[in-house]
């Protein structure tokens, strides 16, 4: 009990990244152990360049969403509609209409459509929460239902194949043998880290999430900032839809099922407080990598899905416990 309160009370003072390494130590250890298990049980197959690229590619789309989610949760919110927004963005950007326009104007139309749809959904979420005073759970739950419903209507529940060669070539390229989407993920992580830790926008996010009333009194436009946060997450959802469309070459209303929980889980085991006011982009990155590596190691060892599910639960708990212990030690 005392250990718990210490962590959470000590944190706000140091939240802005100075203790980042120490706080993430537990996650790094967990990831290293996981890789060790992979190396021992699957050896060369695990350590091969191809496998590492596969893990990074699989982490990319969900990772971009999780980075966006880090901002919203740090700002004291939550968004359950991310998976549905990914689905809607992918469907909207792969309709025959959009693809025909992409044919004449260029593949960038597909990308801008997806990100535009994402931002629009995010802005609606933000407006409902900030100005409509609907709690984030409910507002984004409503978005979850209606965005996926709309995606189903637009796609007529069919899988839409992306035929635009320009799009496939541009996003399917592999400079230096690494897929473009992995570079996108890396850029999002770097920009996200910078935005959260080194800009006014980031400081405002911490302030709004930590104590909205104090933030308001300090002159921050809390409502407007909240809209920005959800719009940002919407944009990352649109980007994730683009990445998913590149990997699967389809848009579908079934894309991103249950991503809200995967993203929230990655953010939370990363060390971002669900109650807001504290957040870490690097922790989220590690959280996403731990989950993706876990599935990979299990598949390499040909373990059943039920065993995977059990182990996933255990590892979430172990990672969080480990992280609390190590963070405690370094903060006392």
């Amino acid at each position, binding site marked *: 009990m005392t250990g718990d309160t210490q962590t959470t009370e000590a944190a706000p003072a140091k939240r802005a990244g100075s203790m980042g390494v120490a706080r993430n130590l537990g996650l790094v250890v967990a990831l290293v152990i996981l890789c060790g298990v992979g190396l021992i049980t699957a050896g060369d197959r695990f350590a091969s360049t191809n496998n590492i690229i596969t893990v990074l590619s699989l982490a990319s789309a969900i990772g971009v969403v999780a980075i966006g989610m880090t901002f919203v949760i740090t700002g004291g919110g939550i968004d359950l509609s991310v998976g549905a927004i990914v689905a809607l963005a992918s469907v909207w950007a792969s309709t025959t209409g959009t693809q025909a326009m992409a044919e004449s104007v260029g593949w960038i139309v597909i990308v801008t459509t997806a990100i535009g749809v994402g931002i629009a959904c995010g802005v609606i979420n933000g407006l409902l929460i900030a100005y409509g005073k609907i709690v984030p*759970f409910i507002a984004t739950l409503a978005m979850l*239902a209606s965005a996926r419903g709309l995606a*189903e209507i637009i796609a007529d529940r*069919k899988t839409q194949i992306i035929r635009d060669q320009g799009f496939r070539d541009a996003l*399917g390229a592999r400079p230096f043998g690494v897929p473009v989407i992995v570079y996108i993920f890396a850029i999002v992580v770097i920009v996200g880290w910078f935005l959260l830790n080194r800009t006014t926008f980031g400081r405002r996010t911490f302030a709004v999430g930590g104590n909205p009333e104090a933030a308001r009194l300090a002159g921050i436009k809390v409502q407007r900032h909240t809209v920005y946060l959800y719009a940002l997450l919407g944009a990352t959802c649109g980007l994730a839809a683009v990445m998913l469309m590149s990997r699967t070459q389809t848009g579908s209303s079934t*894309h991103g099922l249950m991503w809200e929980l995967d993203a929230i889980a990655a953010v939370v085991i990363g060390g971002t407080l669900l*109650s807001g006011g504290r957040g870490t982009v690097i922790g989220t990155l590690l959280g996403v990598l731990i989950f993706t590596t876990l599935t990979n190691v299990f598949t390499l060892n*040909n373990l059943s899905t039920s065993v995977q599910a059990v182990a996933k639960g255990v590892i979430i708990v172990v990672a969080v416990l480990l992280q609390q212990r190590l963070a405690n030690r370094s903060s006392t």
Partner: protein
Amino acid sequence: MSTTTPRRRLLALAGVAAAASLALTACTNSSDGDDDTANVSNTGSGDNAEAGDTVTIGFSAPAADHGWMGAISSAAVEQAEAFEDVELVNAEGTNDVNLQISQVETFINDKVDAIVLLPFDGAAMTDVATRAMEAGIPVINVDREFDSPFAARTTILGDNYGMGVSAGRYVCEQADGNTDAVVAEIAGIDSLPLTQDRSQGFADALEDCGLKVSNRVAAEFTVESGERAAANLLQAAPKIDYLWNHDDDQGVGVLAAIENAGRDEFVMIGGAGSANVMRSIEADDTVLKATVIYPSTQGADGIKLARLIAQGKSMSDLAEVEVPRKIQLAAPIVTKDNVDQYMDSAFES
């Protein structure tokens, strides 16, 4: 004190997750079935084709939330329209068991002549189906079986175990005695009995020729999950000879993963029989060389059987005077050689 907030949040999150899945189910109810599936309805020939007494048939099925289910409903409707003497009462497709029960109750109150029912959950619909039977209305159970034999006059269903067997036999045939062949399997949602049946059939057929599944992963019937599962599987097995994917909807993602990984050393077999996959088999330009069928015409056949039963006719090709109690459809393997034969009954995914 400061620790209670995140804990409460987590609890609330769990609650919302449950609510979210409910809402998701609810929102899939509103849409209509698709209308551009292949037209396979026909009125048959001989005495049975001639119009008899006009009969009213009630039809209820789950929401058309994937290609196969959409094809089931639209094929049933087309089949009913092809008959002059059938009046179809088509209930809106739903994944809400309560709503589906009330749909059947309405059919009973309206005293329809027969009910064709593809339950969202066979066990949950058993009671109301039994009540319909007790009210003298024959129930034709499609695809997902009831718990009790008293709940249906006739059951028509696909063969999940048989799908596995057909895929396994095809692998055995292709391997031609080579017992070192590496066989991989991408299943659908692992907790479903239908997935377990498919995998069991596959394993049993492979065992017959001394093969076994060396790598198995499970996806979730969606394109994205298929891509994810296949990407990992391809890393787990650097060399594969045969790959069976249970479901053609998720198969789109599986093929994308195979293309991303630049792999082409194996033969892939699909499952369910979507039109996309059949066109691909016909074109013969990917690793996909075959698929096994899980017929999407079951609903249409349910309508045909309901009409015969309601009119007191028999299946004219059988010597027996009554329509059989149970009809299990075959799960044939489709390859380049016989794809023409099955193309018309394939569903668009």
